[in-house]
């Protein structure tokens, strides 16, 4: 997936100011930044939900799967009914087979008949992602997928997502948790006030933080990162 010079404005506010992004097959890219940085706007444009005011997005074949921040599924339907519905809407030739495949992938085969509203937030998020995968996407976009999950649920979620990347799916996710981005993202894109400040591996980001905010180099990475953003005027 390639995006170049993306610009988006809401009235007089610039949500994105010429952001570039590239991600290769099987790559896990974390978009990180404080609230209001433009992460969701960038993902919405990449997903095709929103049109940019400038720039363009391209993908070399395959579909784009979209997993919104809040689980986008029907809480009064069962796990299986949700997957079956979206498989049918995706136009799968054998929606039941696709449903079985996703149930297995999400590890929810035994809970297929449960009403979604009765599942934990983590399991709801796994179904949410499984629905996003029904389009068999080459690129999967996840908007803050771990929000509201406890540490154990987060660990299971990232195990699941890392498995997808291991099978060749490009995963681009947003988060405002620097440690999560560092741990799971192979590449990090730092956004602040719609501006792209950094794009590279976590080690290079640490180096950049040490270089630009030396007074915070001895502190934990999150504190040093905040100091780095302040040095960059955000």
């Amino acid at each position, binding site marked *: 997936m390639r995006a170049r010079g993306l610009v988006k404005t809401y009235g007089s506010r610039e949500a994105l100011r010429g952001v570039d992004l590239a991600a290769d097959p099987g790559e896990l890219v974390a978009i990180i930044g404080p609230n209001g940085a433009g992460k969701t706007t960038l993902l919405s444009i990449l997903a095709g939900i929103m049109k940019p005011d400038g720039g363009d997005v391209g993908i070399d074949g395959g579909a784009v799967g*979209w997993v919104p921040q809040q689980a986008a599924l029907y809480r*009064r339907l069962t796990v299986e009914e949700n997957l079956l*519905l979206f498989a049918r809407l995706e136009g799968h030739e054998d929606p039941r087979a696709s449903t079985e495949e996703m149930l297995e992938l999400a590890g929810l085969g035994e809970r297929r008949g449960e009403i979604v509203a009765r599942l934990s937030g983590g399991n709801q998020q796994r179904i949410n992602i499984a629905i996003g995968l029904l389009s068999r996407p080459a690129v999967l976009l996840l908007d803050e997928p771990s929000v509201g999950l406890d540490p154990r649920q987060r660990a299971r979620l990232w195990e699941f997502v890392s498995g997808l990347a291991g099978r060749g799916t490009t995963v681009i996710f947003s988060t405002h948790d620097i440690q999560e981005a560092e741990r799971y993202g192979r590449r990090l894109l730092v956004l602040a006030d719609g501006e792209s400040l950094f794009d590279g591996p976590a080690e290079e980001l640490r180096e950049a933080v040490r270089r630009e905010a030396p007074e915070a180099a001895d502190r934990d990475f999150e504190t040093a990162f905040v100091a780095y953003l302040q040095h960059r005027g955000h």
Partner: protein
Amino acid sequence: MRWLLLKDLQILRRSPLQALLLVAYPVLIAVLVGFAISRSPEKPRIAFLNEVPSDTRVSVGGQQLPAAGVSDRICSRVECVDVKDRAQARDEVESGEVLAAVILPSDLVDKINSLGTLTPGVPRVEVLVNEEDPVKAQLVNERISTLLAQANLAIARRIATEGGHYLNLLVNGGNLRVIGQTVNILGLRATAQILGALEPALPPGPLRASLREVTGFATQARDNLNIAGPLIDRIAQPIVVKKEAVSGSSPPLEIFAIAVAATLTLAFVTVLLVAGSLALEREENAFSRLTRGLVSPLALLGEKVLLGMVVGLVVTLVMLAGMQLFVPLQWSRIGLWLLAILAGGGALAAAGAALGAAAREVRAVSLLAFMVTLPVAFLSLIPSGAVGSGLYDLVRIVTAIFPFKPALEAMTAALDSAGPGIGGPLAHLAILIVAYGLLARFALRRFAAV
């Protein structure tokens, strides 16, 4: 679209309270309206004390009419509760067991009979009422006034009939029974003929001239009293009503009541269901996912309207089947019923979709749907002339914009075989489907925004 429809029906099935309301509501409406229109209006309970002696008769020109007919006439229009005395009558009224007490005093007939004398009295009927409730007091006053007007009219008719009979006897002659004896009355007609025959036998002179004057008087009196006959007949009811319907043809009351009940059911079910279901797509965060290439916004709106039409059709048919227990319906017209329900349901569902897209949150949508549907339904039932012309024009505009009134007109036309055609209301509903569909589509542009 069918998978979305299936999904919505599954969700509906999983919401027992919602599903129960959808079934219970029309059944309740059907039972209430059915009872209301299948039973004749309850007769008011009136305590009745008749103190007039049973052998007393109303005297009209020497003729005696039985007085008992008055009480029969009153008790045919109300449910009379016989009481033994005034104290019991008062107790019954005070306790609320009866709406009022009517007492015919013992001198009532004597007073009526005195109307034909030089010293007429004032016949009075005594009425005891309990006015603690202003609505009830008004009802009693109207009922009593109506009853007395009817009693006065009956007496006046009887007197007029008797008067006409005597007048006819005076003009044309005949037999009259007086105190058991039959008396032959010559009559003005025969008198004039006899006098006219006598006149040539008299020699010319003052006597013959006088006889001619008497003959002329008898002839004039006959002719004028002949004219007076119909006038006396009209005294009892001097004004008659000639009614002509210059516009509209009202359906039978029970048909109209069924149409109102069915349209109310259809309106609430479709508007609430469609508006709520569309808002739920947003609350479940599914709207963005669906419209990201899986379903177009227009197709989603179409599915919601279809959902409203399907559920509205089923529920309204259940309600009509319930009505059948109380009022026989013409099931041979079911084709027109279906047409009216589907068209009305379509327009109401489109309005529901517009409300759902505009309000966006399920709770706000439910409130808005009630706040719009209920007043518009009431406004739609206001007849012309009930309010000022300017206000009525405003009511007509409002009720033409919302689909309830055309849906009601279509339902009435479908149920009433003698009523106006269904084409006009269907065309109106078709326009509203398109208009509300466009409004809903426009509102969906900002639907997913926070």
